[in-house]
């Protein structure tokens, strides 16, 4: 219901339930505050926002962050009495504040400093000695706390407890001795600790990485997107004198809402690393030696051309792409598929899902998942792999969204969800089928008792159309087939359900969207559907569907694949089956690596080309929802390293082909023009001022998604209309049609808005306004096809444990962690989690060493008793500093069974 509120004499519209401080801010009246934060519960503690509020019984001094508006309310923020209270509160806050602003990292961007100047009394009457505490104490490896500067606003403590769910910092003592601190021996070891540094309204909480690093007025910032995982949190990248100084979270309503995880916030040390590749390297006499770009490109182009000439295009493979920008991905897809004419291209390293599943299932956004009437979780431990998505879902659970989790071993969300069904590894499909089959089960399903299945069924019952399935890879120790089959069961059992694919790698979604996958072409079309269209635009496309990473590695190790390009990929560290990767990289004839560092895999390369890294190049990235947002360039690329798209252009040039790109903008314009799913996502839209949220592709008609607000953008910024525009075909509920080069906004079509963008109906021909008559039809984006029936996993013998393996947040084999000094030490030691029963049976103590043997190999590892892990199951982190699960996993097997023995 709309209410009328008068603020400083001006009438303002407001909604019931809104807070006075928020309504005033919207009306342009800034009420000073310290403890209030729009993303957290109000506590009314600092008292800075006291104003005169008259709700009908006369004006009263009221905290504006607590008071909700009522109809006819009168608010006075300027009364002399209010001014005097503000003076008083600021004088109170400053009596114990050290005023060491000249040496404080916050000085210059400090809300206490700013509001003291704007609202404060100007001088203090306090003549006594201030309170003293030990100057900064480390409350974690990343965060320092100076309690003298603290004004006890409860922002950090509230965030940790309520938003992150890590209640590790608290108020201790009382009265004027109150301080924020940790409990002894319980450091602030939270994956989200950096957020409190950004939230702190004074310099009490500072980051180890930023301490005395820069002054705010010397900092330049650029808007960007975090790529440490695929959530795509919006960030501001800040630098001074060509060094990254910090990342700050930007508040994007549909994505990160201001928060970042610590890995995303602090993983910039590697950019400046002295170990970065600075020049190309060529293998000469068994050694990698420095070379010029000309020599290196010449050699790489010759090696690739020779292999194509001798063995055919299918003897070349390209692995990787998730580290790349969208523009890089497109350029490399074009190089591989039209110049090299190979379809052996895969951005995933055997740890994802088939691209047809990711792109074909009806899509859900993060916001839709968080507002769903029920959520089914079928994926990895989100806190470890996609931390900010964990925060979003945690908040949704707190608001009452019922979540049913299907997992082979307990995750960070298990204690929070309505129902957590811990099933036998590899048997998710049977459980998923039982969830949606008619009638409650009578017997155990995949190790889950029938009563638990019935409880989960009850949680899902009745909201078929608003169920969101969060779908990822629950374990790297099993093949994706079981997960795909489970998704198929949910898709057919819950016809209205939508799916949020949760793949981990930074721009993996962009890479898949832009064709870095076998059988796909840019814009979410299949090779077959897009063959004519892309042959028209590119000249040629591969004949047959190519190999995925596992198949490429197998082919290389068997001598069928002779040249391999690694695009920021490190299969030796990152592929689930390390033995296969080792065989492949030592067998393949030509290995061309495009990377930022010498890694385990690039050591085997014949040519190494140094690539520009994060914050060193411009472009765009696509998050797991399919949301495209911009990356900013803030520092100069290391040495002579170049953006990956430039490398693609140069290689093509040396093979006699012109990709047609001179700037990254050229690449995006071609994507927008040619890639069917990306039609309408123009640069004008992406670059529109204030578009923090990016653009969800394809245009769905959902205003929150971005594209549907094109009309608004055009209305606000007429120059947008003059920008290159698109021809979305009629079947897509497009947002604009190009009529002789002029963009005419049209109302978003509603027919299939929000669902899979392309209906099953054959696409209509593109409007033929300015297209030559022989242009082929724009192909439809691919849709979900039910998977072929999947083999049941083999029975487990009674002496074996079935392995579950996932990644830790601080994955020590990823360069952005291992080469960032402040993160490298945070990796957890390797430990095998098993039910205490298994250890007792073996006679091994909790914390003792066990030998783990699979059909592939054996590792010795510390075993930790974990009663939450079911009997018959064992959990081992995937990438751990010591030999981990990758030594045990066979990429071709459905599941990984291991024997547990005394060493």
């Amino acid at each position, binding site marked *: 219901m709309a209410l009328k509120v008068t603020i400083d004499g001006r009438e303002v519209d407001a909604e019931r339930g809104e807070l006075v401080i928020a309504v005033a801010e919207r009306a342009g009246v800034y009420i000073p505050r310290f403890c209030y934060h729009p993303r957290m519960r109000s506590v009314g503690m600092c008292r800075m926002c006291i104003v005169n509020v008259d709700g009908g019984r006369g004006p009263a*001094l009221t905290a504006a962050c607590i008071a909700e508006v009522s109809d006819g309310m009168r608010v006075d923020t300027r009364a002399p009495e209010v001014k005097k209270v503000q003076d008083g509160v600021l004088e*109170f806050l400053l009596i114990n504040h050290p005023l060491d602003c000249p040496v404080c990292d916050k000085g210059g961007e400090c809300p206490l400093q700013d509001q003291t100047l704007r609202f404060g009394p100007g001088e203090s*009457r306090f003549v*006594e*000695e201030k309170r003293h505490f030990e100057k900064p104490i480390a409350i974690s490896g990343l965060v320092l706390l100076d309690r003298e500067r603290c004004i*006890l606003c409860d922002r950090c403590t509230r965030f940790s407890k309520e938003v992150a769910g890590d209640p590790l910092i*608290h108020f201790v003592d*009382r009265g*004027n001795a109150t301080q924020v601190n940790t409990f002894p021996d319980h450091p602030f070891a939270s994956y989200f600790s950096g957020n409190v540094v950004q939230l702190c309204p004074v310099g009490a909480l500072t980051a180890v990485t930023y301490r005395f690093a820069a002054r705010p007025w010397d900092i330049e910032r650029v808007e960007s997107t975090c790529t440490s995982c695929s959530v795509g949190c919006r960030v501001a990248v800040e630098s001074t004198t060509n060094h990254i100084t910090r990342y700050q979270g930007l508040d994007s309503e549909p994505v990160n809402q201001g928060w970042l995880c610590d890995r995303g916030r602090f993983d910039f040390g590697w950019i400046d690393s002295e170990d970065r590749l600075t020049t190309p390297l060529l293998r000469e006499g068994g050694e990698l030696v420095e070379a010029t770009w000309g020599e290196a490109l010449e050699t790489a182009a010759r090696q690739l051309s020779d292999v194509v000439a001798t063995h055919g295009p299918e003897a070349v493979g390209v692995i990787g792409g998730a580290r790349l920008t969208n523009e890089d991905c497109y350029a490399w897809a074009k190089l591989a598929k039209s110049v090299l004419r190979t379809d052996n291209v895969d951005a995933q390293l055997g740890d994802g899902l088939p691209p047809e599943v990711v792109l074909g299932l009806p899509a859900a956004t993060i916001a839709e998942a968080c507002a769903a009437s029920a959520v089914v979780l079928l994926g990895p431990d989100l806190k470890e792999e996609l931390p900010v998505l964990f925060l979003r879902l945690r908040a949704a659970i707190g608001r009452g969204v019922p979540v049913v989790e299907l997992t082979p071993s307990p995750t960070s969300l298990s204690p929070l969800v309505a129902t957590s069904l811990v099933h036998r590894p590899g048997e998710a499909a049977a459980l998923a089928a039982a969830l949606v089959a008619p009638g409650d089960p009578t017997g155990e399903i995949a190790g889950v008792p029938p009563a638990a299945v019935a409880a989960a069924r009850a949680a899902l019952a009745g909201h078929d159309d608003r169920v969101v399935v969060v779908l990822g890879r629950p374990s790297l120790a099993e093949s994706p087939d079981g997960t795909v089959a489970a998704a198929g069961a949910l898709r057919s059992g819950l016809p209205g359900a939508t799916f949020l694919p949760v793949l981990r790698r930074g721009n993996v979604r962009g890479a898949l969207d832009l064709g870095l996958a076998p059988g796909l072409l840019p814009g979410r079309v299949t090779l077959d559907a897009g063959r004519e269209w892309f042959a028209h635009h590119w000249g040629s496309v591969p004949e047959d569907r190519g190999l995925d990473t596992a198949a490429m590695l197998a082919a290389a190790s068997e001598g069928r694949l002779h040249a391999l390009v690694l695009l920021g990929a490190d299969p030796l560290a990152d592929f689930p089956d390390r033995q296969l990767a080792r065989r492949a990289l030592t067998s393949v004839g030509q290995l061309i690596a495009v990377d930022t560092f010498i890694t385990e895999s690039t050591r085997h390369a014949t040519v190494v080309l140094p690539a520009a890294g994060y914050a060193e190049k411009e472009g765009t990235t696509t998050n797991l929802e399919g949301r495209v947002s911009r990356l900013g360039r803030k520092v100069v690329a290391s040495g002579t390293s170049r953006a990956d798209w430039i490398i693609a252009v140069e290689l093509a040039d040396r093979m006699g082909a012109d990709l047609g790109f001179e700037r990254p903008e050229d690449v995006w314009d071609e994507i927008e023009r040619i890639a069917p799913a990306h039609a309408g996502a123009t640069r004008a839209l992406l670059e529109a001022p204030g578009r923090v949220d990016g653009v969800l592709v394809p245009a769905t008609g959902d205003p929150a998604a971005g594209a549907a607000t094109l009309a608004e953008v055009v209305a606000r910024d007429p120059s947008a209309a003059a920008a290159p525009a698109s021809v979305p075909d009629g079947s897509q509920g497009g947002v604009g049609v190009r009529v002789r080069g002029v963009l005419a906004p049209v109302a978003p079509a509603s027919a299939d808005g929000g669902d899979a963008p392309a209906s099953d109906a054959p696409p209509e021909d593109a409007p033929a306004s300015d297209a030559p008559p022989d242009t082929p039809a724009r192909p439809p984006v691919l849709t979900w096809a039910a998977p072929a029936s999947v083999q049941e996993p083999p029975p487990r013998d009674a002496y074996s444990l079935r392995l579950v393996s996932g990644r830790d947040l601080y994955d020590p084999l990823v360069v952005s962690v291992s080469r960032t000094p402040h993160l490298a030490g945070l990796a957890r030691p390797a430990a095998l989690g098993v039910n205490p029963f298994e250890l007792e049976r073996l006679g091994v103590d909790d914390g003792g060493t066990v030998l783990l043997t699979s059909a592939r190999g054996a590792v010795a590892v510390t075993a930790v008793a974990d009663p939450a892990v079911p009997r018959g199951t064992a959990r081992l982190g995937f990438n751990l500093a010591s030999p981990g699960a990758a030594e045990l996993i066979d990429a071709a097997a459905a599941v990984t069974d291991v024997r547990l023995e005394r060493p």
Partner: protein
Amino acid sequence: MTYTPVPPIVTARLGQYDDAHTLARAVETGAYGALRTALGQTPEAVMEQVKVAVLQGRGGAGFPAGNKWGLLPAGKFPRWLVVNGDESEPGTYKDRILMERDPHQLIEGALICAYAIRASQVFIYVRGEMALAQERIADALNDAYAAGYVGRRILGSDWSMDITLHWGAGAYIVGDETALLESLSGRRGMPRPKPPYFPAAIGLYDDPTIVNNVETLSNLPWIVEHGGEAFAALGSEKTNGTRMFAVSGHVKRPGTFEVGSGQVTFRDLFYDERLCGGIREDRKLKAFIPGGGSAPWFFEEHLDLPLDPTVVGPAGSMLGSGAIVVMDETTDMVRAAWRLVRFFAGESCGKCTPCREGVSWLQRIYERILAGHGRPEDLALLEDVGWGISPGPYPGAGVHPGDAAFPFPPRQTTICVLGPSAVAPVMSSLRRFRDEYLAYIAQATAPEATVA
């Protein structure tokens, strides 16, 4: 007004027997009889009796208990009854006497209330320092459970009720009902902002909750037994029943006294031989605090006011929780004010800025003045710091009758009334005894080295 003793209600048993706290003595003198009567009626009928009685809360704010119960949202369960036994106001010890000396009366009262409001469970929160009260209530609960007065199917009826005893950790602020609820639910004891939500709507575990004072509930057995009308007939026109007052300080016979509500003046209380028996060594009265450490002070000219909240409030102070502190002519008023301010500074929970920073600032100014480093401008500073905590012309400074009424709750920039409580002794002493402050400042030896 001359003092006429009235038959006591809440101290009837403990005034007569030293073993009033035992179950045997309590039952012998009628305990749990009213509970049986209540269980024979509908909850609504019991509540109606309490409404008719107009039983004003004895914890300080004086809100009628029956009306408070009526604020519970209909049909919302679970709902809790919490007994506020965290009596901590400086000078107050009436609830302690009731808990130590007649715990069965409190338990019976709590059960009657729980029955009337259809509570799901009762919690008794007893102040951390009160070890004897803890033990006595614990013993009484054990005995009452064993005898079937508490627990399942009470007195053979089909009504069951559990009572949980909780021992506080020792914090004055937990006397505030919302801070008490935070503490009881396992969190740090800090008050919640209210409005928007009062405990009757969102209380313990965010469920509807009634918080009542020990003395308030101890009146219920009598009301059920004699009827609300009989209770309303006692006391003065505006305040019913009897009230306990705990007198401390410079009187000959300090202690607790139960008198007819509104029927006794301060002069009666201090000077009547049957009550306090006069000021010690027959000295002159200098000032007295009529309602606990938080109340503005009264003086000689207020002696003939009746102990009636509706009179004391308009006269510029409050009757609060019934704690009266008497100061004779030998009292150093600057030190007296400092002692109270120091208490409040130490007990501030640290949640909101004006209380956390302002009250300790007041304390330090006092300590500087007392140490001989006062400055003339400190008097204005004390007043202005006080204004920052409790803004406005401070009405209840108790200079003389005719001062504006003392509003309750006072005007405040803080979340709860602890901050303004610390301002009361500052304003009262500063206005009435300015000369004593000036004397300290005149004696000041040297200005203190300033460290800003």
